[in-house]
């Protein structure tokens, strides 16, 4: 399976986070809300015109800007 940036996920697709690309501070911020490598996420929605992306992680939802979502790489989890 190929690594893709988080923004390329479609609504409802599940994926596993592989890596962050944006330095230590960026990584720390993502980690603090649980967006860490090996976490499983589901995409909920993205706003039009490159607006924020919302994802489900565990029992919580997190919204992040388009630019941030481009710097997080994930692997799709195929539907069982």
């Amino acid at each position, binding site marked *: 399976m190929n690594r893709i940036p988080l923004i390329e996920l479609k609504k409802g697709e599940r994926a596993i986070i592989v890596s962050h690309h944006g330095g230590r*501070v960026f990584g*720390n*911020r993502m*980690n*603090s*809300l*649980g967006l*860490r490598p*090996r976490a499983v996420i589901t995409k*909920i*929605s*993205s*706003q*039009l*015109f*490159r*607006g*924020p992306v*919302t994802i489900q*992680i*565990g*029992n*919580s*939802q*997190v*919204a*992040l*800007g*388009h*630019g*941030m979502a481009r710097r997080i790489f994930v692997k799709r989890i195929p539907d069982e």
Partner: protein
Amino acid sequence: MNKILLIGNPNVGKSVIFSRLTGVNVIASNYPGTTVGFTKGFLRHDGKRIEIIDVPGTYTLDPTSRAEEVAVQMLDDIKDDEQAIVLNVVDATNLERNLHLTLQLIQRKIPMIVVLNFWDECKHTGVSINVEKLVQELGVPVFTTCGITGEGIKHLVDSLDQVNVSTLQFDPDNIWNEIGLIIDKTQKLTHRHHTPWERIGDASIHPIAGIPIAIIILAISFYIIRFIGESIIGYIAEPLFDKLWTPVLMKISGLLGGSGFFHDILLGKLVNGSIDYVESLGLLSTGLFVPLGMVLPYIISFYFVLSFVEDSGYLPRLGILIDKFMHKLGIHGLAIIPMLLGVGCNVPGAMATRVLETKRERFIAATLMAIAIPCMAQIAMIFGLVGEYGVGAIFIVFGTLFVVWIILGLILNTFMKGESPEIFVEIPPYRFPYIPGLLKKVWMRIHWFIKEAVPFVMLGVLVVNILYFSGIIQFIGNLAAPVVKGIFGLPKDAVGALVIGFLRKDVAVGMLIPLGLSKSQMIVSSVVLTMYFPCIATFAVLLKELGIKDMLKSAGIMILSTIIVGGILNLIL
């Protein structure tokens, strides 16, 4: 033990637990040397008085924001205090992410207790946690609570003495591994279906369906605010003033002989032989009626509705929906929160600009709010007075302000150096607000208005009278006439209202009535009064938040844009 720090992630119900543990005397203050606010209260237990500090919500002890820095500083402050403990409030439905902070706290070797809140929600979210095992793994006591119903709170309070320092050891670089191990041993997840609330939650951030939902929510909120506000005025405020207060004032008027210097300062001029609460302009008539009879009812209903919407979890979703648009104005979606608060009163709005991360965003948000967001005091007056000229006139006033808000934002965003950071926010599930906690919050928000507005309105009314009696207003009027008359097309007397607008905008709008302005003059003066400068209380807060240099810049922008917008309106109307 005499001090408890309540610490936890945002949105874990920490403030409800806080409100359960403490009594009515809650003190809101700023952490010394910062603009980060926190609340403090007291728990009485076994004849002891224990101080409880509600630490700003934080996800991590490696701070990524000012609020998180303060949280860490507060922990440092109690390092050597043997009488202080930490209550780590954890969202039981989100154990894995919450344990990140818990393990960071454990690393610091502080005596602590873990509180699993939202325990009742675990069942329908398919989470089951083995509390006994969790106690073994973490090495500190763990209690379950449900903040909303109060379940478990008493047991927690009775068990505070079991507080313990954990001996758990792990490699800090592999903290997520450690969390994974703990989760494997203590938590079981079962599959479950989406609840109706979650479906609504997903729909309200849908890129297309979200917009009509937002409009409906805002329209309903507006309608309820008006309904509650008008009901309080119609059934409580006006009858009280008319039936109880007017007879008292008329007695005093009779004693003072119906006119004269003292009569006019205390009661104002009689209109058609009786007190007119808006036009008389006396300390005891207009000075009391405007803040208490006309404005306070709307302040109460506004903050009640806004706090309800806030506590139900909608605002972050609204922030996401409009994020892209707000970025064009140089601020991100969450800046909608200070803007909305500013509609109640610009003072809490100005303070809420702190939620924004960078100086640039705070400057843009504060300037836009001070210029283009009229406070409830002013809105109520504009509705009352401009409303006589029809709905169209009101529409022009608020439409103009909205356009100014957008254009000025676009300009500031283009010409100010730097970029605004992207939005990054957790979206809490929808919950029905905890009403006693909500009422406490509403009270803290209107408290400021009651404390400050009444004296300021009285001062404003006093100053008006003195300025008129002494002829100073006529003098300033002559000086400012070229601008006021030439650019805005207003009579010289309108200067009085502009001078008083520094003190209170609501009194200033009231002062326009006796001038007999035309429809377009009324519109121009309402817009100018909103834009040209914040009232003195907002000014003081902005000065503190922005610093002198930025405040001067902001004030320059205000005056310049007022002259341009007022001039244009005068030309086209």
